[in-house]
Every structure is written in structure tokens, then in C-alpha cells.
């Protein structure tokens, strides 16, 4: 904060392009990586937009990985008594599929939107702690690497690249099972040393590192949203997406600690022989379930609230109406967030909670459906009487409402404990959470991609392909998952490697598999479309959808400093009101100092590298591989060095001057009434 004055006491002549400025030295005497373009720029960037793009790219990559895992699962289940893949590999596939989709697909794609959009939506030039933001990105990449590198070792082992070397090296644990296989919620005692190999260690450490990334990012976003809003951007004028980011961030900072501690306890059980969950010494596996779901249920809202925020931006835009019941949507988001901490045991009805607890959690779960329903009604209210345009993002957003609602209905069915006793651990639950997660969250996120990609890349995605994708995804999704309701109710258990032919499940499993491949093609086409857009798509205007919120008022592509002059916000949906209403946006006067930009840094990247080394070696250390312990310490050492250098280099900063081609440069580029306003 104080950098504005410290870094630049004798204000030198400012330019618009950082690569033209003289290099600057940090307090450590090292040259800051500020003046580059290309790869170094991307590796050390502190620009929330670039960070957002990298989060998005990583998320899409992992969606593809998780998608391939899913297709393999479906291929195995296509017919009864199939032996396409081994039971062990099957376990690894569904474990990694779930873990990947949740932590490496949905969460980072939401993070991509947080990063790209939040500062733009609140009229800020960056997040509150730019280097911390970079740290979150690379720590996330490290965690994702640790989780997935297990596949690499698994593969190498299976095809015999290492021969028996891993065992010969002195590992005291059998190393045949290297990729995680304990399910995404890793129930004890299956995760004990006696039952699973180092895959579980990869899983534990990978999730720990991802947790650090999510926590750091969430602290950063809460501070950004509370503290960095443009003048006039009061809390009740915040775009709903930003509101949902805020609530999600709070959920993360309160929910992740529970799993962090649970994972740490599990790690101690495996590494140092403690008794937290080891039943033979008095540990209680049920405690793991509780701690996991204390995190796990808020986690499902961490996944869905950002998508709800996205949909709340898209529906009014394409109905040409303000969002119906804005305060109620915000309030029910907050209520969902709060109640989300009080329903975790609905995942454990069948464990015998006792009558009172069962009743209480059942009622609270039913209660949480109320604010969820309220939101749906408000979205319908936003559509009602609007001039609806069925653009690609709108089609996806409408798909979200419908599919999510179906998932909500089955959720309410689960909330009744006696009914849930029948459904628990059957394909019915698989249908439920895919309707909320895929039909809900993923459709919402895809809607967001089609909506904001013109702003992100300055290019328009192919609309025809977009509609085709929407049809393929929504149809494929329903063909895959709707039959699962039926499969589940007729008794097909989830997480089953294969099934007998006389159970009556063959037909619907085959249908589901066919649907899955249609869905897979749809998602793949979507990503192809976006990749094509990024490089080849036709140029997009700055405000292609006649948007309502501040991000549309910036030029496209968005300059590094976002806003040449800080906007003064006069209303909710301020850009819409500015264009079509009576309250014009104003801009803060230029103080003649140029725009202060934060310096880039290598150190967050070093921390990420340290975490990756730490995590991978930790798994081998757990297996008893010699020298792995030294690698663990080296990894941690790198993190510490990174943090120290980061603290000591000083925040730095430099000044940019936006191009002075008249007043127009500062004003929204294509607002029809902007010129008339002044």
C-alpha cells in the first residue's frame, strides 16, 4: 500500500508499456522480472487477468483428464461382467476422477472467473495482494502436479520402467498401488497403511497443498472485495457474481481448516503411527467421516455458489431486465453459506447418528433447500416478461437452472433419512450429485466461459458450434445420468467395478455409457471452440452483449491497469444505467502520477516449485524410499526461502501512463451515450 510513495519518490516520466521502462532492482539487489513479455512475464505475472487465464487453462486441462477417467469408467460399466480394466485401476480411476473434477476442474475454473472478473467488476486495478495471488496460482499447480504425478509413477511401474527398483530401493511399503484409490472422501480405515499404498499419501499431500492455495486465494479475495471497491460501489451495488465470490471465499476459509487438520491427522497415522483413525488402537473411523463432511458439505456450496453467481449475471443481461430480487438473492446466498455448516451429517445418516441428530440434520437439510429454491424463483422472476435472447451463454444458463433443480429435488429426497437409507451408496446418489455438479455447476461455468470469453480474449467464440455444444452437452448429460436414478433405486451400488448380467442393469448402463460419450464429445468441442477463439476467432467489440456491469465498460483487450481512470459508481448495474438510464458514471480525476502498477516476482513461483518437490517426495518418504526425506526438507526449504525473499524484496512498483488520445480513451469504448454525457 505504501508502495505508491516509497517506490517512486522522484516521479519519472511514465509510459504506457512496461517493457519500455528501465529495469528496476528490488531491495535484495536483484533485478525484478517486470520488463519482460512472453514466458517470463507469464511465470512471474501479478496481473489478475493473466492469473485468471492460467487458472482457466489448467482447469480445462484437468477437465479433460478427469473426463477421460470418467469415460474409462463408463466403458468398463457398459456391459455386465466386463473386464476391460482391472478392479484396482477402476478404484484409482473413480478416486482420481472425483478428486480431479472437484479440486482441479471446478474449483480452479471458478478461481479463473474470480481472478479475471472480481477486480473488473468492483472497479479496482488489481487484487489487494498481487504477489499472494501469484502464490495461490503456483501452489495450486504444485498440488495438482503432486496428485497427478502419481499416475505417471503408476504407469511407469505398470509397464515396468523401474523394474523392481522402487522395492529394491528399500521402500518398506508395497509400491504396486501408486495412484490414489481410496475414493474422493478417503474414508478411514481404508486410507490406513494396512489397506492402501502410497497413492493415499499422494492424495493427502496433494490435497493439503491445494488447500493452502485455496486459503491464500480466499483471504486475498475477501480483502479485495471488502477494501478495494471503486467509490460508490457499495456492498449492495456489487454484482451478484462478486457477492458469490465473497461468500464462497468465506466458506473456503472456514471449511478448509477442518479437512486440513483431518488430513494432517491421517498423515500422522500413516507416517508416525498415531491412533486418530486406526481402529485397532481405539481410533474412530467415524470421526474421519465427521471431519471430512464438516468440510465436505460447505465444499459443495463452494462449488456451486460461483456458478450461481455467473447465472445471476447472464440471465438479466439476456432478458434485458434487472435481476429480480437482488437483495434476496444475495441474502439467500449468505444463508446457504451459513446453513451449509450445519448439515454435514446428512452424508452419514446410515452410520447411526442417533434419533435426535438424525432428525435435526434431516430438518436442517430440508431447510437449506428453501434459500436454494428462493434463488430459483428469483431467476425465473428475472426471465419473466423479459425480452429473452437465446444466445449461447443464455442457453447454458437456462440449462443450469433446469438441471440444477432436478439435482435439488433428489437432494431433498436424500434429506429424508429413511429414504436416504435406501439411496445411500447407490447410483441414485451418483445421479444426484452429477445433476448438481455437472448439470448445475459445469453448465454454469460453461455459460460463463461463452459469456466472458469475448472480454478475456477479445474474440468471439463460434456461435453455431456453441449451440451444437449446448445441445450435445445437455442431451448427453441427461442420457448419461437420468438412467442412474433408476439404476440406483433398483439397487446398483456406486463404486462397483462390475456387475452380474441378471440384475436388469445392462440396458441402462449401456445407455449411460453412450450418453457419456456424447457428453464427452460436447465438452471436447467446447474446449476446441474456446482454444480456436483464443487464437483465430473474429474480433469482438468491448461490450458485445450490452452488459450491465463494470467489466464491460473497459476496452477489449483489457489494459494491464484495467481502468485508465477509476470509475465512480452511481447505481447497481451501473454500466447499464450509464448507457440506458439517467445516472452517468463519472471518473476520478487524474492525479498526474500515472498509474501505479505492482512489481512482478519470481518468489511465488519458487514457493510453488518447493511445494511440488515437497509433496512428491513426501509420498516417497512415506513409502520408506531412501533419501526422500532430504527432498522433503529441500522442498520445504525452497518454500521458506521463497517467502523470505518475497518479504524482503519489497513490494516495488512502477508507473504507467495510459495513452492520451483524448478524453475518449478513459471512457467506456462503445457506449452509445458516453459522449453525450459530457
Amino acid at each position, binding site marked *: 500500500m505504501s508502495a505508491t510513495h516509497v517506490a517512486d519518490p522522484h516521479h519519472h516520466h511514465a509510459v504506457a508499456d512496461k517493457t519500455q521502462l528501465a529495469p528496476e532492482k528490488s531491495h535484495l539487489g536483484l533485478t525484478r522480472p517486470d520488463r519482460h513479455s512472453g514466458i517470463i512475464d507469464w511465470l512471474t505475472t501479478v496481473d489478475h487477468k493473466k492469473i485468471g487465464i492460467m487458472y482457466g487453462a489448467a482447469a480445462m486441462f484437468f477437465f479433460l483428464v478427469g473426463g477421460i477417467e470418467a469415460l474409462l469408467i463408463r466403458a468398463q460399466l457398459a456391459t455386465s461382467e466386463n473386464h476391460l480394466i482391472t478392479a484396482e485401476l477402476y478404484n484409482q480411476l473413480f478416486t482420481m476422477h472425483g478428486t480431479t473434477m472437484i479440486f482441479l476442474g471446478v474449483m480452479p475454473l471458478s478461481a479463473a472467473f474470480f481472478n479475471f472478473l472480481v477486480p473488473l467488476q468492483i472497479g479496482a486495478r488489481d487484487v489487494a495482494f498481487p504477489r499472494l495471488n501469484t502464490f495461490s496460482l503456483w501452489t495450486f499447480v504444485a498440488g495438482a502436479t503432486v496428485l497427478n504425478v502419481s499416475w505417471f509413477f503408476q504407469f511407469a511401474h505398470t509397464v515396468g520402467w523401474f523394474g523392481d527398483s522402487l522395492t529394491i530401493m528399500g521402500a518398506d511399503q508395497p509400491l504396486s498401488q501408486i495412484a490414489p484409490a481410496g475414493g474422493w472422501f478417503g474414508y478411514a480405515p481404508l486410507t490406513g497403511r494396512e489397506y492402501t499404498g502410497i497413492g493415499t499419501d499422494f492424495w493427502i499431500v496433494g490435497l493439503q497443498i491445494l488447500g493452502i492455495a485455496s486459503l491464500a486465494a480466499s483471504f486475498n479475495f475477501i480483502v479485495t472485495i471488502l477494501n478495494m471497491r471503486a467509490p460508490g460501489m457499495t456492498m449492495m451495488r456489487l454484482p451478484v457474481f462478486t457477492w458469490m465470490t465473497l461468500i464462497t471465499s468465506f466458506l473456503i476459509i472456514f471449511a478448509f481448516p477442518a479437512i486440513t487438520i483431518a488430513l494432517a491427522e491421517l498423515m500422522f497415522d500413516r507416517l*508416525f503411527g498415531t491412533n486418530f483413525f486406526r481402529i485397532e*488402537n481405539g481410533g474412530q473411523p467415524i470421526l474421519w467421516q465427521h471431519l471430512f463432511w464438516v468440510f465436505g458439505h460447505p465444499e459443495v456450496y463452494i462449488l456451486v455458489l460461483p456458478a450461481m453467481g455467473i447465472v445471476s449475471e447472464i440471465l438479466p443481461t439476456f432478458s434485458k431486465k434487472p435481476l429480480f430480487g437482488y437483495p434476496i438473492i444475495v441474502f439467500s446466498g449468505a444463508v446457504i453459506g451459513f446453513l451449509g455448516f450445519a448439515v454435514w451429517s446428512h452424508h452419514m445418516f446410515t452410520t447411526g447418528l442417533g434419533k435426535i441428530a438424525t432428525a435435526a440434520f434431516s430438518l436442517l437439510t430440508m431447510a437449506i433447500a428453501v434459500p436454494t429454491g428462493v434463488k430459483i424463483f428469483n431467476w425465473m422472476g428475472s426471465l419473466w416478461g423479459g425480452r429473452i435472447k437465446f444466445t449461447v451463454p443464455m442457453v447454458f444458463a437456462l440449462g443450469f437452472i433446469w438441471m440444477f433443480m432436478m439435482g435439488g429435488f433428489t437432494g431433498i429426497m436424500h434429506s429424508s433419512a429413511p429414504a436416504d437409507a435406501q439411496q445411500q451408496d447407490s447410483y441414485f446418489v451418483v445421479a444426484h450429485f452429477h445433476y448438481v455438479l455437472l448439470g448445475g455447476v459445469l453448465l454454469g461455468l460453461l455459460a460463463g466461459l461463452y459469456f466472458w470469453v469475448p472480454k478475456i480474449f477479445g474474440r468471439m467464440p463460434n456461435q453455431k458450434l456453441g449451440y451444437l455444444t449446448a445441445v450435445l452437452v445437455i442431451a448427453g448429460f441427461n442420457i448419461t445420468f437420468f438412467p442412474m436414478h433408476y439404476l440406483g433405486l433398483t439397487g446398483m451400488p456406486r463404486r462397483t467395478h462390475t456387475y452380474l448380467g441378471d440384475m436388469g442393469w445392462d440396458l441402462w448402463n449401456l445407455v449411460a455409457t453412450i450418453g457419456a460419450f456424447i457428453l464427452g464429445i460436447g465438452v471436447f468441442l467446447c474446449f476446441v471452440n474456446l482454444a480456436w477463439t483464443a487464437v483465430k476467432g473474429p474480433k469482438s467489440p468491448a461490450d458485445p452483449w450490452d452488459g450491465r456491469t463494470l467489466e464491460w465498460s473497459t476496452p477489449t483487450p483489457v489494459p494491464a491497469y484495467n481502468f485508465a481512470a477509476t470509475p465512480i459508481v452511481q447505481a447497481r448495474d451501473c454500466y447499464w444505467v450509464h448507457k440506458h438510464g439517467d445516472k452517468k458514471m463519472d471518473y476520478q480525476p487524474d492525479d498526474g502520477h500515472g498509474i501505479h502498477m505492482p512489481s512482478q516476482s519470481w518468489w511465488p513461483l519458487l514457493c510453488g516449485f518447493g511445494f511440488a518437490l515437497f509433496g512428491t517426495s513426501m509420498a516417497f518418504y512415506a513409502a520408506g524410499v531412501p533419501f526422500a526425506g532430504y527432498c522433503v526438507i529441500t522442498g520445504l526449504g525452497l518454500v521458506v526461502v521463497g517467502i523470505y525473499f518475497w518479504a524482503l524484496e519489497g513490494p516495488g512498483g512502477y508507473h504507467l501512463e495510459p495513452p492520451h488520445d483524448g478524453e475518449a480513451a478513459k471512457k467506456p469504448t462503445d457506449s452509445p451515450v458516453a459522449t453525450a454525457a459530457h
Partner: protein
Amino acid sequence: MASQTANPPLDDKLLEEIHADSHTNTGIENKKLIMWLFLASDCMFFGTLISTHLIYRKLYPFGHPQEGAVDITGTFDIELTSFSTFILLMSSFLMALAVSAMHKGAIESFRRYTFGVILFGLIFLGGQVYEFQHFFHGQGWYEWTATNAAGEEVSGTEANEGVFHDVADTAAAKANFLHEHHGYELTEFKELKKVPGLSLQNSVFGSTFYVMTGTHGTHVAIGVLWLFSMLIYSYSGRLTPRNAIDVEIAGLYWHFVDIVWIVIFTVVYLVEYIEL
């Protein structure tokens, strides 16, 4: 105060600039806000650890499924822990003064108070290391009689594992005794009570106790390292009154570690002494 003279004089313009720089929507500096958010989140970290401990305490009145497996009050050393608690409380007091000093722009006073905090922090950590070591090795209470060269006989009791290491090995006990009490020869001794060692592995209580207090100890150690770095940094001349906020957030962290201990001291140590 004489100390104030060592503090460099300050310009009031600086104070104005500091206030202007820290302007935000909420009126709370970014760094302070993020620290409080971290602490709010840290409540959940410790909440989970303490929950784990208490759940198992409730489930296993003996710290273990097996009756009589852990002698908890026998293991604890409440005098030492009370002393550590007191030290940590006082370190919080010094920390508050160190922050206060920075707000006055009194770098020299800041250094002295911070040094005190670090020292107290180290004493606390030392106490914890000592405590862990003793808990791990267990304790024995012994009754002994000894004679000196003049033939006088003395007797007493001792809570010392080291001397009477092995009740069967009289020769070793005699040698150890002579080493500790010069000129006295041990004639007779017997074990009154023995508390077995507490390890991470040998009971559920050991697991939850060490991991919880160990996590707290790690927090203290990080705090000591943080303050120590800040103290060293202050000699580089770069730590100015502008950095009052940096000291303040380190202080917040330190106080938080203190309040966590207030809770742990009560729900983990003191309640064990209540006779039901």
C-alpha cells in the same frame, strides 16, 4: 523515560502520509484485514484439533480404550505448565507494548520489547520441549534412605526417573544417587508409583495431545521466527514507522497464539484435575 531519547525524531508529515496510504473502503488496512481473516480461519484449525482431543477424552476416560492405560494427571506437570502459561501471557503484554512503541515511532523501544517477546517465546518453547521429553519418558516416585560419611541417615522421596532408572539394578541406582547428592550413599529405595511414558503411538490420548499441543508449539515457533526476523530487519534501517502495520499484524498473530493457549490450558490441562 531515558529510553525515549534513543528513538529517532520524526516528522508529522510522515504520519499524515501513512494515514493517507492506508485508506480503504472499510477503513481497515488490507494487511490487518487479511490477518484477522487468517485468525478467524485458524480458529477452525484449532477448533478441529481440540474437538478431536475432547471427543476422544470423552470416549475413553482413561485416555485409551483400555482401563488404566494412561495416568493423565500423573503425567502432567501442572506447575511447569502454569509457569509456561504465565510466561506466554506476559509475552503478550510485551508484544502489545512493542506494537504501541511502533505506533509512537519509537523504534528503539520496539526493539527492546520485541526482544523480550522473543525471549519469553523461547522460554515457553523450552518448557514445551522439556515437558514433551518428560511425558515421553514417564515418571517414577521413589522413597529412599541414604547415609553420609559421618554415618547420619537421611531419607526422602524423589520424583526422578533418571536416578532410579531401574528398580532391579541397585548398583546403577547407587551410582546415580551419588552423582546427584554428593557424599551420600544410597542404602535403600523403593518405587512408590510409576507413570508410564506417553508417546504418539501408545494411546489415543498421546496422539491427540501431542499433535494438538505440537501444532500450537509450531505456531509459537513461527511467531518467534517472525519476530526475530523483524528485529534483525529493524537494524537494516528499512523498518520505519510506515511498517507499524507489519509489526501490528505480527502482534495479532502472537496474541492469537496466546488465546489459543488460554483455551488449551483450560480444556486440556486444568479440567483433568477436576475430581468427578
